[in-house]
């Protein structure tokens, strides 16, 4: 164990830019590395991404491992795994952090099992245990009804971190750091999956995770028609529309709109939950919103325990009046 040193952060990119989770992980990694008195390294994997190294350093990394190869353009488990294993072999970190994203959810477990260690997924808090110097990883269990503090007993300790639980450090463009180019001889025979097609959702308006206002509909909305009304309110506030799982399962709205433990994590200034009961799985994805407003016809609904403002009403009657008044207030 003594051979493992420092923290390594996987920096995800999207469309040639550093993903927001990368800057968050660098901040989290920086503080852990500081507590350990060790260094923070980062790894960039992809095609045409070497140019992002300085930004990664500006955000806190002491050293960046860059694996920049055309074969790594698309994320595929097997090729990224080969790259990660090579970099980890070189860097020998004590702690490896990835984002709890579609990439991290896929890569972290396979990486941990390949390295004969373990991963703890979806961490919402990380700390160093002063007694053992090991990483304490806090994550939701039982759908968010509880949280568990877990420890990985082998090295490297792998964790995925939920988005928005750490604030990025401000950019310090004067920061210096080392850039290490790593060539990985990717064996195509070991890459056993292929991307056959990709469909991007044409997003109109603000992205759910970035929106300052989110209007979410639950099962009680009853159909796709109702979601149009929610979109009208969201549009008025320059916000985005979210949904609970049943609303997505019923195809009243795209699966990509799901907010919650297994959906998107949002923390807007204002979260308006309409006909949402407030299950722990749902609240797990929106409870860090600054202000939660609930419209529900059931005064006993659990959402009122987490909401700051609310009305007990049938949304079909209340929402049109609410939207009309909001329009008047924001335009006036």
């Amino acid at each position, binding site marked *: 164990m003594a051979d493992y040193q420092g923290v390594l952060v996987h920096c995800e990119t999207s469309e040639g830019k550093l993903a927001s989770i990368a800057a968050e992980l660098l901040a989290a990694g920086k503080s852990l590395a500081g507590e350990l008195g060790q260094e923070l390294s980062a790894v960039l994997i992809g095609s045409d991404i070497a140019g992002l190294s300085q930004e990664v350093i500006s955000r806190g990394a002491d050293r960046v491992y860059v694996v920049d190869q055309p074969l790594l353009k698309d994320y595929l488990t097997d090729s990224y795994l080969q790259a990660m294993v090579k970099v980890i072999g070189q860097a020998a970190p004590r702690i490896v952090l990835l984002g709890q994203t579609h990439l991290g959810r896929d890569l972290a477990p396979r990486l941990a099992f390949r390295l004969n260690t373990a991963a703890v997924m979806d961490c919402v808090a990380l700390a160093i245990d002063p007694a053992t110097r090991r990483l304490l990883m806090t994550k939701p269990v*039982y759908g968010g009804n509880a949280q568990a503090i877990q420890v990985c007993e082998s090295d490297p300790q792998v964790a995925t971190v939920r988005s928005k639980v750490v604030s990025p450090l401000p950019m310090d463009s004067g920061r210096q750091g080392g850039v290490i180019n790593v060539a990985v001889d990717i064996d195509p025979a070991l890459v056993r999956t292929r991307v056959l097609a990709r*469909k991007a959702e044409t*997003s109109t308006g603000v992205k759910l995770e970035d929106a300052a206002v989110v209007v979410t509909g639950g099962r009680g909305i009853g159909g796709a028609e109702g979601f149009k009304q929610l979109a009208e309110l969201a549009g008025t*506030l320059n916000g985005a529309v979210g949904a609970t799982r049943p609303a997505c399962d019923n195809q009243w709205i795209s699966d990509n709109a799901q907010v919650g433990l297994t959906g998107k994590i949002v923390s807007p200034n204002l979260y308006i939950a309409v006909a949402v009961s407030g299950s722990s799985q749902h609240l797990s994805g929106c409870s860090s919103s600054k202000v939660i407003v609930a419209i529900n016809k059931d005064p006993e609904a659990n959402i009122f325990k987490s909401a700051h403002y609310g009305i007990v009403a049938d949304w079909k009657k209340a929402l049109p009046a609410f939207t009309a008044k909001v329009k008047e207030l924001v335009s006036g």
Partner: protein
Amino acid sequence: MKIIVCVKVVLDPEMPASSFKVDAATNKVIPPKGTPPVLNPFDENALEAALRIKESAGASVTVLSLGKNISKAVIRKSLAAGADRLVLLEDDAFEDLDACTTAGLLADAIREIGEYDVIICGREAADTSAGQVGLGIAEILGIPSVSLAGKVEFADNQLKVDRVLAYGTETIGVLLPALVTVGNEAGALRTPGIKAVMEAQKKPLTVWKAADLGFSQPQTRKIGVRKVFQPVHETKCDIVTADTPEEAAVGLARKLREAKVL
């Protein structure tokens, strides 16, 4: 085609939040009275995905479950829905295992079962939310995997898997044998008819103990649990009341304006 579906029996995750309690001394959940065990919801989606392949391409479906005292009433639901065979890894030692041990045991059992083309698991368990058992099995068995699937099809001699991304989907082609983890987007498990439920009661179960898998003592855990606790968030909800829902809604909007939220 031979499909293996891994299924976990869990405490009903849809229990009311108010009935959920943790014993601080043991770090264990106190099962609320009257909350029955159920099939892990994502594993139901996994089974449904398997049954759809069975219908379209022809397949045998073996359901594999691991635990201590697995509820037979609950697990037989998978036979009623259309699975052909049920293998239970059941032993007192199979309690509170970490994800690494769980994946190791399931992989051992899959090797024991022998032939398979596709292994399907739910994306995560509703209780531990560990989210790595399926992918761990694939890694141990050395087969490719595709996670977070919304749809799984067998066509042109390969598995075609639609992965639900943050903003869109991608279709991944993978050669067999392969492992897939699925989410709720894969569809709800069909409801079996009365006759199928009755017949499922009579079907034999295969039960393997720890010793059958050469599992004599729990391996050292890789993931230790230091503490389990219920986060407290105290918010006081300001409920706006009025004579009609419309007036209440207008009152709510005004209040949000006063509070500078709007």
